[in-house]
């Protein structure tokens, strides 16, 4: 079957290509419904990755956060028209979590993402949901937060639930929300720098500005969702405020190396854990959380800054250009 794929060829240049969709007995043919633009997509679109990375990875279709509709399930398990969450991780065989295995592939990171009119995925990469609620498009980012929480639980050294989340962007929002859902009685302090953005974190215990931290405030564990140039400053502040034997979970992506005061880590006996993406089990947990936790669903809805309907190739550029201006998530209603 001939399908169309919209690939980023170069900075701000997307071209439609025709290509044959290959289906097997385990394939589910889907068409995308909603997509959410991630900061990682935007870094490719704007050419903010290093030149050699751009050369190596492009051309490539962007987008790894998406929901879809089943056109046909070749195994006969899902009915036509069923709404599904799309899983971007193609897991390689091996030990440990699939998102860290060397051979695993991830959509829109070296491999084509979901920006296509239709495509086939193996059965284990679609998760059925009961309706086409737009918030399921945030299953991927929520699964990343849940992956961080499960790693944190496996490594934490103290029982205290006073959490600090650094970052007032979309990842910080979802990380804080996931913590609120999993630890309803915890103290959650969100460290940000923009009042306009921090106001959205109404479920947090308190929003704190990074340049105006109350004296004597301490946290037991930290989740860093800043990334880029700000991550070094955030980590420095975390090392200052975190209690001994705390855990620091890093989620922010940085193109460059950052300086970390290792003396502080040694003195306080801290654990630092890196987090990258999520696996199939995290996705199922995210979908379950959205399905069963009404508050989670309601708060995720306000994560949307703007919804752009994409009917033409020009609308794709509009969506990405608008996303730069938006504080939180730009959702694409995919009608191509």
């Amino acid at each position, binding site marked *: *079957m001939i399908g169309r*794929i919209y690939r980023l060829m170069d900075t701000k240049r997307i071209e439609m290509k025709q290509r044959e969709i290959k289906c097997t007995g385990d394939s589910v043919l889907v*068409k995308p419904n909603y997509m959410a633009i991630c900061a990682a997509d935007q870094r490719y679109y704007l050419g903010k990755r290093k030149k050699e990375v751009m050369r190596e990875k492009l051309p490539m*279709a962007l987008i790894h956060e998406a929901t879809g509709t089943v056109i046909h399930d070749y195994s006969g398990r899902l009915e036509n028209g069923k709404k599904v969450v799309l899983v971007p991780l193609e897991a390689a065989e091996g030990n440990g979590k699939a998102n860290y295995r060397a051979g695993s592939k991830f959509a829109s990171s070296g491999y084509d993402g979901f920006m296509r*009119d*239709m495509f086939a995925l193996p059965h284990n990469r679609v998760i059925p949901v009961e309706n086409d609620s737009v918030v399921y498009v945030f299953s991927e980012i929520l699964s990343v937060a849940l992956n961080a929480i499960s790693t944190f639980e496996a490594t934490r050294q103290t029982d205290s639930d006073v959490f600090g989340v650094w970052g007032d962007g979309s990842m910080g929002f979802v990380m804080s929300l996931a913590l609120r859902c999993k630890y309803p009685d915890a103290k959650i302090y969100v460290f940000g720098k923009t009042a306009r953005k921090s106001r959205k974190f109404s479920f947090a215990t308190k929003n704190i500005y990074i340049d105006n931290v109350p004296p004597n405030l301490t946290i037991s564990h930290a989740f860093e969702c800043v990334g880029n140039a700000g991550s070094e400053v955030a980590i420095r502040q975390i090392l200052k405020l975190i209690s001994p034997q705390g855990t620091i979970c890093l989620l922010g992506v940085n193109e460059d190396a950052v300086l970390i005061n290792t003396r502080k880590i040694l003195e306080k006996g801290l654990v630092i854990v890196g987090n990258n993406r999520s696996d199939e089990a995290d996705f199922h947990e995210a979908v379950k959380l959205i399905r069963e936790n009404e508050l989670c669903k309601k708060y995720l809805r306000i994560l949307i800054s703007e919804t752009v309907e994409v*009917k033409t190739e020009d609308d794709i550029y509009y969506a990405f250009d608008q996303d730069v201006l938006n504080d939180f998530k730009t959702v694409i209603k995919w009608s191509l």
Partner: protein
Amino acid sequence: MIYAGILAAGLGVRMHRQDMPKQFLLLGEKPIIIHTLEQFTVNPNIEKILIIVPEEWKLYAEDMLSQYDFMGKEYAVISGGVNKTESIDISVCYIDETWQIQDGDMLIAHDAIRPFITQRLIDEHIATVKKHGAANTAIVTNDAILVSKNGASLDEVPSHEHLYAEQTPQSYSLAKLKELLGTGVPLHKESEFPRLWLKAGYEMRLVQGEYFNMKIINPYDLEVAEALLKERNA
């Protein structure tokens, strides 16, 4: 009921290097007609599919189509007429005799040799026929169109701003089609059905086509189509 009519009754005389109609030639790993059919098969709004083929290739088409997965959709292979207009007439008669045409039924007629049709085109045709009764696919021409009555000298250069190239699908309300065909219009003399439609006083709306919704009619087109599909697979 929404019927797709895949027009595959041409004998492909222009594809001189091959000894079978062009719609059965391979594009990539599949016959051209299969690529086209797949787009209609996966569209959830299309309920039944008619495949109109040359009489002498009907058995071959039935054999070939029996090997493909129509995803549970009902289909029929019928013999076409001498031109597209007659093939549409035959399709309407077949539908009425087999399933009985009801109000609201429509026929989305599409050239088998346009395998790059999109879901957007199919969906817009359906929406347009529901609202206006008929739809044709048009695309702005990049080249100026010239008129020459003898093929040697120029007679006219029509204004570019009103000229569009016609593609398919062409889609019609089946009740109106039946009404028009019941008036005994001379089908064999007219190869362009939309002309008959307009002459009869019916409205026909335009749906924006795609430049890549190309017709594979000669070896050059097939090479272009193959090149389009040679992109690295995802």
